[in-house]
């Protein structure tokens, strides 16, 4: 059985609205990654896709619709619902089992066709109680932000700095949906749509077909001269009812601890060179940095002030612009893995972090105020 799993190739398309339909867009990204790896469809062994069910696409059992577009005709495959990092993990399992030498992991989301993210995430709420109140991810995030600011004395300006940093980083990312040079005042002066969150602190609704080719150690070395290796994964979930939870005690801590243990990481701030994390709401980047052990509890504000998470800092966070710049809901987790891979391979173009890098972290989250988190560690 193989001991190592490598990423042999990656591909993604832009977050802005494409002229292609879902079906064709999915086909094109699959073709692109197979071409990049020099692999024929016939040689591809298994396919794990990620797509959200009907509420994020209008079609039930989504993989029935796009099955053949992912090269899966008469091949064994499966699908993960909602979080594409789940699909990444499942692909890794399939390779480690020894049954397959290549696995295509592909995440599909065409945000431009979908209802607003909040209309979709409202459907996560139980129909009797939380949904009647209108609970959705944005509402949960607004409450979480309020508690965070009050418990640790975090200023709205510190949260806004995340937007300024990430949208500026996105200027170097041809796939980003939203980008630009803005000020803290711009961010705080944007529509205060769900106080304390303003419009610019909330991720947009983007397109994103994201693909990644996994291979066993030997096969990966054949397919690429620059393999990036899987080193660790962890995920965790919290209680369901938002009132049952401490919104500042997130399951990310458990997820990160699992991933670090698998990867043999004991000092994350020192050992991780770059992190791509999922921050659909600006302040969450600060909390997640704390939970990932990049700083202490309540120190997220100080951390952004210090510049440590800038592209030039000691631990750049979201050099791609993150999810605030590009939010293909289901695909965003896998997109973090793709961005981290590009950084480690030195192929990130204008958004490349200029330092020698060995270890990268990719993070995904979904659910109310981060009910579920997933962390992947990659290395060269």
């Amino acid at each position: 059985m193989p001991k190592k799993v490598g990423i042999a190739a990656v591909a993604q398309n832009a977050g802005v609205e494409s002229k292609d339909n879902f079906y064709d867009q999915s086909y094109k990204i699959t073709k692109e990654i197979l071409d990049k790896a020099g692999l024929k469809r016939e040689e591809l062994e298994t396919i794990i896709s990620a797509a959200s069910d009907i509420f994020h696409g209008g079609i039930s059992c989504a993989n029935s619709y796009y099955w053949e577009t992912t090269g899966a005709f008469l091949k064994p495959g499966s699908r993960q619902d909602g979080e594409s990092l789940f699909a990444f993990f499942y692909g890794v399992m399939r390779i480690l089992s020894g049954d397959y030498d290549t696995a295509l992991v592909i995440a599909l989301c065409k945000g431009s066709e979908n209802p607003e993210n909040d209309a979709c995430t409202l459907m996560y709420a139980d129909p009797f109680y939380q949904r009647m109140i209108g609970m959705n991810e944005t509402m949960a995030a607004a409450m979480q932000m309020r508690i965070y600011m009050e418990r640790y004395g975090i200023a709205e300006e510190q949260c806004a700095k995340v937007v300024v940093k990430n949208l500026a980083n996105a200027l170097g990312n041809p796939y980003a949906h939203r980008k630009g040079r803005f000020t803290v005042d711009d961010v705080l002066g944007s529509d205060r749509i769900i106080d304390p969150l303003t419009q610019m602190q909330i991720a947009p609704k983007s397109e994103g077909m994201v693909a990644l080719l996994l291979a066993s150690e030997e096969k990966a070395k054949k397919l690429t001269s620059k393999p990036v290796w899987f080193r660790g994964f962890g995920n965790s979930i919290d209680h369901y009812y938002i009132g049952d939870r401490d919104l500042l005690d997130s399951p990310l801590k458990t997820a990160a601890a699992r991933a670090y243990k698998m990867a043999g990481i004991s000092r994350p701030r020192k050992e991780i060179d770059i992190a791509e994390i999922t921050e659909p709401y600006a302040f969450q980047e600060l909390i997640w940095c704390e939970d990932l052990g990049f700083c202490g509890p309540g120190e997220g504000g100080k951390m952004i002030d210090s510049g440590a998470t800038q592209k030039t800092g000691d631990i750049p966070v979201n050099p791609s612009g993150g999810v605030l710049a590009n939010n293909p809901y289901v695909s965003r987790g896998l997109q973090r893995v793709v961005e981290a891979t590009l950084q480690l391979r030195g192929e990130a173009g204008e958004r490349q972090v200029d330092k020698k890098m060995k270890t990268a972290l990719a993070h995904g989250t979904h659910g109310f105020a981060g009910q579920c988190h997933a962390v992947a560690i990659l290395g060269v």
Partner: protein
Amino acid sequence: MGNPVAIIGIGQTEHGKRMDVAYPELVREAVVRVYEDAGLEPDDIEGIVSGTMPSMMEGVALTHFYLADAMASKGKTILKTETCGSTGMSLAHTAYYWVSSGIADLVMAVGHEKMNEGDSQATMTTVGDPFYQRYFISGAPGVFSMQSQMWSVRYGLAEEKIRDAAAFISLTHHDSAFDNPYAHIKKRLTAEEIKTARIITYPVRLWDVCPNSDGACAVIFASQKMVKKLGIKKAAWVKGVGFSGEEQFFGDSDKAVWQSAVLAVRQAYSQAGIKNPLKELDVAEVYNPFTFQEMMFYECFGFCELGEAPDMVLRGSFTRNGDLPCDPSGGTLCTNPIGATGLIRTAEAALQVMGKAGDHQIPGAKLALSHAMGGIDQFNGIMIVGSEL
């Protein structure tokens, strides 16, 4: 195949119209039972994979959130697998690869559905793309009836004969359901009643079709190390897995000889070293929401030659006393909480080889096949389990 994997615990709800409980409570019923059966506590489990058919069925999206507490999943690694009708089998596959990869030693798979809360056929219709097919597939019976019709013409099967064979299957399965404490529809029928029942989608009539069931199934998968450590005597070892899928366009592939079924079973047989399934398998839990389709599966799985299934059925080859008993649990025809159904097939196959199937036990069963299918006649998945490592 990777590290050996065994099924060591099974929990099912009483399937049926379960308007007596809310969705999370239904799921918890199966989860409590699987822990009782395995003699484990939620704290022992490292990971959980859950799944349903589409969100529209109950109107809640990404149910791993809503059901997090019912599955006692706080702080655990969670995955959410969904592949339409084959979801239950894909859940078993996810749990299998998780353990066989060496990443975890104990994983629970939970399949669940509460079909009576939504409109199941309207939901199935939304599996079809809204551009071409959605308006024509008339839920699940539509495509499957077309497929059966295609098959009967291909092999020149007389309508009277396949009608008789289908009625035979329906009658024996509905009888078997009386011996399964968890089955939904338990009914003594006559062949005449079945053959003259109301037409649903021609040639499929009322008793040729599975019901809408509410139900959940939980199964615990363990590594060899864990089976030893826990001192487990009765385990069902995974001997082979297979899956294959076809295009979403119903008209693109030949459905009379169903390639995805043929390839999925070939992959599983090759892993399990099975050359003559009719001889080597002791029991099969074939996913049979429609009687006609069940016969096509017998052919695709090599239980008989193409076009021969109706004759074999009428000879009694697949009854509980036959050469290869199929669906002694009553099968999907009597119980169909979709997201759970494929996992129930694997659970029933495991119960058989563990000798724990109670009144529907096939004596001495050692090797069993389980199967599920899904999509717009697209997906087939197989898991073969055996009593020995």
